[in-house]
């Protein structure tokens, strides 16, 4: 019962995050919203593991999602800030070009 309530609560917050990701006036709103969505997804996978009855399998998936999601956020931020993925450039370099 508690697990079901948790799931529903997570879904509601995910819906809010999704609305912000679609509406969000600035890029940062969207990035933050999608990042929050990712975090909620991880939580949901973990909770689902308990609902289904074997958390060990689902924890693996949740862990992987955390690690990969972090990289995605970094990549999106880098593109929006510098316009490319390659250089380790600092902020000042980007403004020059």
């Amino acid at each position, binding site marked *: 019962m508690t697990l079901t309530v948790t799931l529903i609560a997570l879904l509601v917050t995910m819906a809010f995050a999704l609305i912000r990701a679609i509406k969000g006036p600035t890029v940062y709103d969207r990035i933050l919203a999608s990042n929050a969505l990712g975090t909620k997804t991880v939580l949901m996978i973990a909770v689902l593991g308990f609902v289904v009855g074997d958390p*060990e*399998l689902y924890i*693996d*998936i949740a*862990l*992987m999602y955390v*690690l*990969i999601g*972090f*990289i995605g956020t*970094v*990549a999106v931020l*880098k593109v929006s800030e*510098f316009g*490319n*993925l*390659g*250089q*380790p*450039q*600092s*902020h000042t370099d980007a403004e020059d070009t």
Partner: protein
Amino acid sequence: MIDNPVLRIIAKIIIPMILLFALYVQFHGDFGPGGGFQAGVIFAAGFILYGLVFGTESLRSAVPPAVLRLLIAVGLALFAGVGVITMLAGSDYLAYNALSEDPIAGQHLGILVVEFGVGVTVSAVMITIFLAFAGRNDP
């Protein structure tokens, strides 16, 4: 981005964890969700994070393209090689039972080597794709 201390430190902490987790997914694939494809992608993700934070130049000096190309071929050769060995042992292609005296041990060994080959190829290909796109504007 290398200037940003938060990101740099986080990346340095998280990259070894990603690689370790990739190895776990690779070799735990017999018992849980996992296997060569997934592990290869996760392993490559660690390198891609490194490339994002420290620049593709550093990534390229860590894993030169020639090495990547070699790794793609080696992974494929591992996969195909197991098949050829089973053929030489007088069985069908990729019939792992022929790899060892005990058929079950043969199955374990065969799937382990084949999945490892898949993992090596997939991670090398993913890093190559990342370098091909992200490293395009390099001087």
